[in-house]
């Protein structure tokens, strides 16, 4: 036996952990079905069936619902996931296992990306087939990239929530943040349909900035500079990573 000398392959650990986490979530229809179905259902309703302007609405809402779609898995897999595992003691068990802590985070990010990709593909398909969305290839690809990587700030937010919230209250709390934040950021209906005050308020919300960033690709944004949106998103990420680290250490001291 040669257990000690053999160095563990980090990539392999990441892969295995991601695979098992993904399989676990796929087997939890309570998570996978709503996260996949909600954005698609809303988009089909507001973007295609009841579209007010068939020329631009399907494209605009495909983008905003994709943003809505990708922040869902980020908030839920991190926020609700960690809170529940903490409640079950599974989180502590993993902490004492030889698996590096990074694998835990990487696996959840992979999971988020995986669900994001699934949502994006479904939305693109519906948009292209039923909404007659026509974009240049560079636009399709850039949008997909923005959506996938745009979920990272929300992973940070989710992680913080997961570490602070109790298992029993987490699902309700995350939903209470997720749905109104999506609406107020103009993901459900174009931002300019909202009253002026709410439009001002949207400036504080990260989904609004991610949506504006994506809408720039199709020239449908409100025309604010890219670096503004990027810095707001970066600031949110940093703040919530900081809060998560703080929460993690606080938990240890208990």
């Amino acid at each position, binding site marked *: 036996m040669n257990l000690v000398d053999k160095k563990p392959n980090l990539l392999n650990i990441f892969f295995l952990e991601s695979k098992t986490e993904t399989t676990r979530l796929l087997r939890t229809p309570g998570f996978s079905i709503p996260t996949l179905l909600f954005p698609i259902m809303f988009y089909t309703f507001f973007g295609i069936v009841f579209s007010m302007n068939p020329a631009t609405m399907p494209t*605009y809402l495909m983008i905003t619902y994709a943003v809505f779609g990708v922040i869902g898995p980020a908030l839920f897999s991190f926020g609700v996931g960690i809170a529940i595992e903490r409640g079950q003691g599974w989180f502590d068990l993993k902490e004492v296992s030889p698996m590096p802590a990074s694998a835990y985070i990487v696996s959840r990010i992979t999971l988020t990306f995986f669900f994001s990709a699934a949502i994006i593909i479904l939305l693109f398909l519906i948009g*292209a087939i039923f909404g007659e969305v*026509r974009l*240049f*290839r*560079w636009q399709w690809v850039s949008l997909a990239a923005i959506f996938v990587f745009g979920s990272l700030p929300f992973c940070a937010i989710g992680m913080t929530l997961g570490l602070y919230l109790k298992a029993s209250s987490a699902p309700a709390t995350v939903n209470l943040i997720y749905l109104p934040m999506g609406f107020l950021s103009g993901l459900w209906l*174009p931002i300019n349909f909202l009253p002026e005050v709410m439009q001002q308020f949207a400036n504080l919300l990260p989904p609004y900035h991610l949506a504006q960033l994506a809408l720039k690709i199709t*020239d449908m944004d409100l*025309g604010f500079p890219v670096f503004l949106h990027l810095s707001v998103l970066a600031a949110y990420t940093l703040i919530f990573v900081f809060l998560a680290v703080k929460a993690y250490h606080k938990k240890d001291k208990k």
Partner: protein
Amino acid sequence: MRGKLIFIVPIILVAFFIMLPEPNDRPMTQNGATPNSSSTKSTSVENSSVNLVNGNFIIREVRFYDGVNKLERADVRITDFKVSNVAESLPQQTKLPETERVPEIDGKGKTLIPGLIDSHTHAYMDALSEAINFGVMTELDMFTMPEFANIHQVKREQLDNTNSADLFSATILATAPGGHGTQFGSDIPVLENSSQVDAFVLQRIEQGADYIKAVYNSKKAKRKNFPSIDHDTLKALVIAAHQHGKLLVVHIDNLVSAREAIELGADGIIHSFMDTLVDDSFVKLMLEKKAFMIPTLTVQASMTQQIDNKDLLARDHNVAHLTKLQTQQLKTNFPNFGIPPEAFANAMNSVKLLVNAGVTVLAGSDAPNSGISHGISLHAELELLAKAGLSNQQILHSATGAVGQHFSIGNRGRLIEDSRATMILLDGNPFENISDTQKISRIWKNGKEFERVLKPESVANTVFSPGLINDFNQKIHKTLMGAGLGESTDQFAGGKSVVELALIKDSRTPSDQYLKVIGEVKQGFMFPWSGFSYLLGKDPQSGVDLSNISAIRFKAKGGSKTTQLSVLIFQSGSMHPLQEDLILTQDWQDFKVELAQFKNLDLTDVANISIVRTQKTGQFEFMIDNLIFE
């Protein structure tokens, strides 16, 4: 499992993104929308062939001419196919809801002018689609058949008539029996005296004339080429036209006639005069009566052998859009009428004197006369007006805003609030260089972008070698090369001429036969003809290459009264043949028509050689034998 996934997932993703639809299903091109080109805030629309902009849009920072006034820099808003707002600067759209934004076009360094108006043409066949292809969006026709005019008079009111120019027409002109206008073979009503005028004008208006055109030559004029209506008839025409609320415009070619016409109350005169320079009293008269002149310098240059379309034909931005027929038209000449060269200088100088005094001059080309083609030749007229000494703004005015001050053509020629967005965007500045009107970047007709038609690509034709075409010993219709030979008359174009072909045995050598052509040339089409055509290409539209042929040879003799015969050579797609007239005798004679003598003939693309009687009406008979390419 893992190894497979690493390959399969990316492949599926790449395939997915390749399958996602793109605009117009057109792959992204280097000149289309690239990530860089969309860095500007507006929806960039550089490549017009991919992205036509219609109905609602903004042209930003463009030099702007509304038909009367000029703005060095303007933003122009088009709403629902009409001009809705012109301002030095319109608000940016960034704060507008995305659903209300419209495409923007960058007009920097460009000039936006109203669609041009050609105030003197004769419109038939493809005239109006040739016109729009060069930014001429309205034609004032000065004699065509009402059947043609009526179709387009209906169309001009339709907003979706966006592929051809709008037409206004005088329909049939008022002239004397045998007068100018009757030489084209059409059987048109004529005026013998003033008592017929009321009925004539009423009939014109019933047939849809937008204004009345008369041809007049004073008894006092030195040059009398055609019979003319008399002074009283012209007077009656002015009164009758005005009674019905129509303008009366008068074709003249000398000062005496022009003066009489204006004194009688005619609204405008057509053609500048070449006999002499205008004098002060005439200038005063024109001002007093607020009369206008349509000088048509282009046709006068052509008649005096001074037309020069070389520059026009040297510019790629023109050549790319000229049809073969148009190029041929631009290369043809009038026969030399022997008019002295100074005559044209008189015409030019008279225009200058009139404009300086404040008389309105309207730009008109008189297309499609020899050397003149619809659309393109209005630009030639603008260049000639510049040569005559008009300022570029005066010239642009004469082809846009000035027309509507006299003719009831609505807002055509203007770009003001609520006028139809019929306009051209020019690369360059026609206020500095009038030939910049030819640098057409984009065209809109009634707010819809018109994609300019490119000239068809030429394909190599079959090369013919010298040899016998038909010795008429066996068959009439079958030829040894080419598609064959057949009867040909103007019935094809709506005329009434008739013809019959027959093979006749030669009395001296019974085995030898010849072709006998009997028929009658009748009035009914502008250019009547009757005879036979030898078709060269596979179908009537396609041509063959005759580069290796130096001449057409045949034997011919005339019937009892027939002394003249014409050989017509048609390029493919052309209705305007090159013509060689031959004199026949009662005896067989050898004829040789050298192809080199037709200096504008493109030998690589000849479609049809016809041997016919033309122009002279009446019965005829001629004999042909041994048709040979040499």
